[in-house]
């Protein structure tokens, strides 16, 4: 049962992950963006546990739990608190050119699949076809960071990029060694906390969260 449907389900979840990455790229509302990020974390948690169950790699359960605690509960909670305290919960960001961004995104996905092709061909894992999707979601989060001008969406892009990397590790090699994964999780958590403090500082100094104010340092 699991052997038969497992790999297909994993592919389905991978597709959902990619879809969520596109949704984040186009989402203007701060609150929905955080919810999308949490949803992405949840799909990641499901995929990781499923891969663990299908392959019998039990250490993946620990990674899945780590994902659940960090990316579905803790980080979204911090972000929710942050936007509540900054009173930007209902903020709508004006995004220009969503269709163009989407088209660039599609080009990135094609690029990612092409790049992942020779690697997937060598992989012996049941999840090998997901490597392209993982790389695509990394690049899409990257695109999101470039196109956004507000500080919080940039942070979410940064965190979503880490989601993509985590998925790549699960797909290609059934997860990195546990000690490395713990280290990465610690870095992400500390990074998110520091960025949170920073956002407050930026608001205090500039009376705005728009990083377009942060363009004074340039070559003259």
């Amino acid at each position, binding site marked *: 049962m699991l052997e038969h449907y497992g790999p297909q389900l994993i592919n389905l979840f991978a597709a959902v992950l990619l879809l969520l990455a596109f949704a984040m790229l186009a989402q203007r509302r701060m609150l929905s963006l955080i919810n999308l990020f949490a949803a992405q974390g949840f799909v990641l948690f499901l995929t990781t546990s499923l891969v663990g169950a299908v392959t019998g790699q039990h250490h993946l359960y620990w990674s899945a739990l780590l994902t659940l605690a960090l990316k579905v509960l803790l980080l979204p909670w911090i972000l929710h608190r942050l936007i509540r305290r900054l009173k930007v919960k209902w903020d709508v960001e004006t995004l220009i050119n969503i269709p163009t961004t989407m088209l660039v995104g599609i080009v990135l996905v094609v690029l990612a699949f092409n*790049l992942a092709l*020779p*690697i997937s061909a*060598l*992989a012996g894992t049941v999840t090998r076809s997901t490597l392209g999707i993982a*790389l695509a979601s*990394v690049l899409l989060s*990257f695109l999101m*960071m470039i196109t956004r001008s507000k*500080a919080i969406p*940039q942070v979410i892009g*940064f965190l979503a*990029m*880490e989601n993509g*990397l985590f998925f*790549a*590790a699960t797909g*290609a*090699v*059934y997860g*990195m*060694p*546990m*000690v*490395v994964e713990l*280290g*990465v999780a*610690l*870095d992400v958590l*500390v*990074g998110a906390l*520091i*960025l949170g403090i*920073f956002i407050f*500082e*930026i608001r205090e*100094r*500039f009376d705005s969260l728009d*990083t377009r104010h*942060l*363009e*004074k*340092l340039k*070559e*003259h």
Partner: protein
Amino acid sequence: MVEMIVLLGSPLLGAVVLALYGHRERAGDINAAFSGLTFFAAAALTTRVIEHGPLRVLQQQLFVDSLNVFLVTLTAFVAMTTALFSRPYMRIERDHGRVSAAGLRLYHSMYQLFSFTMLLVLTTNNLGIMWVAMEAATLTTVLLVALYRTHASLEAAWKYFILCGVGIAQALFGTILMYFAAEKVLGPGVNSLLWTHLDAVKGSLEPTVMSIAFVFLLVGYGTKVGLVPLHNWLPDAHAEGPTPVSAVLSGLLLNVALYALIRCKVITDGSLLQMGSKPFASLLMMGFGLLSVVVAAFFLSRQRDIKRMFAYSSIEHMGLVTFAFGMGGPVASFAGLLHMTVHSLTKSAIFFAVGHAAQKTGTQLMENIRGLIRVSPTVGWGLMLGTVAILGMPPFGVFASEFLILTQAIALHPWAAPILLGALGVAFAAIFGKVQPMVFGDTTARRLPHPPALVPVFAHLAIVLLLGLYMPPYLADWYRQAARLIG
């Protein structure tokens, strides 16, 4: 074993102690004492490696060989002298009201934590942990760059965080791919990421995967090295942070990031050469190195802020070293290692002198700094000698390493030699033309509330001079061994 524990334990303990101790008067002394202890451990470790050869401890998770031992010593040494320099420097900054009490607590604690992360990058055998420590080094320095809480420093820190965060994420993907290739040969588990294990089997790693992995690693760690076109964060972070932080960023962090890149390059090219392909990693490093040298040289003349100018000079020199390692071979790798050492010492000495010069004149704008030599001959001479040294004038050590790199370029890649020479000439004209009136001429400087710390400046310059005139045989031997390791 004991030395290793002290080496990594001392800065970690120092971070905790200084976080608890706070901003009281003696915090600077405690900071210097912990850095001194770290250096002592590094020196003991070095003697041990020289006598007994490479060392692996903690089930091979930590290791020291001829390549990283010299960087460990250098890092611990410059971290110690910078701690000595920052003692009066940060007091003056506090008296000038630029940094708060809470800021000083953060500064001292993060300084120690930053030393710890750098030493961990250098001594870990595990490429995954190396990435984790590298990211942690970014996080600690982001807080240090933003210490003054001004508009410009917040902007610089944000830019630094976002750009390096994105960059280093690419390096994580590269590390995952490397693990993917290693797992095929070594099997799953934490040992497949150990550098020594990878080095032993590099011939049988899948070359396609390794070259894709290296591209990601180059983008990731290259961002931290400050290679053009990934260098945008570097001048801002150097110019807006406190000067001791600029000194360690430029003198140490760039070296450490380059070290990570070298480790990955050795394995990638090992796998490619075995299959009879071109040394792809070396070629990429040569290209990026050359581009960095040229672009940075032309940006130098456009700078008005003194710390920004020397930040661009760091990009230029790191480019030169990357180019040297890209060329490879015993002589070029030897020259690259030597250049890493002398650049690190000279550049941190320059930043020390620049820091006091900026405090005396109250500005970092070069057109407002004039006639340093009248008020403070030591600061003036420190800056002048440091500049002459970094520009590659004999008899300083930078001349020796640049000369070796150039002669190797002429021998191996003649087309690159005129480009390098031209860029070095442009850099010379730009920097010397700007520093000369700052040191000589009429003065604008004032007196400082605490005597400046200039011993580190002259100590560094004396070592650089010594390395230019006479290299102790054991040091040369050690560089040679390390160069053989790089290939």
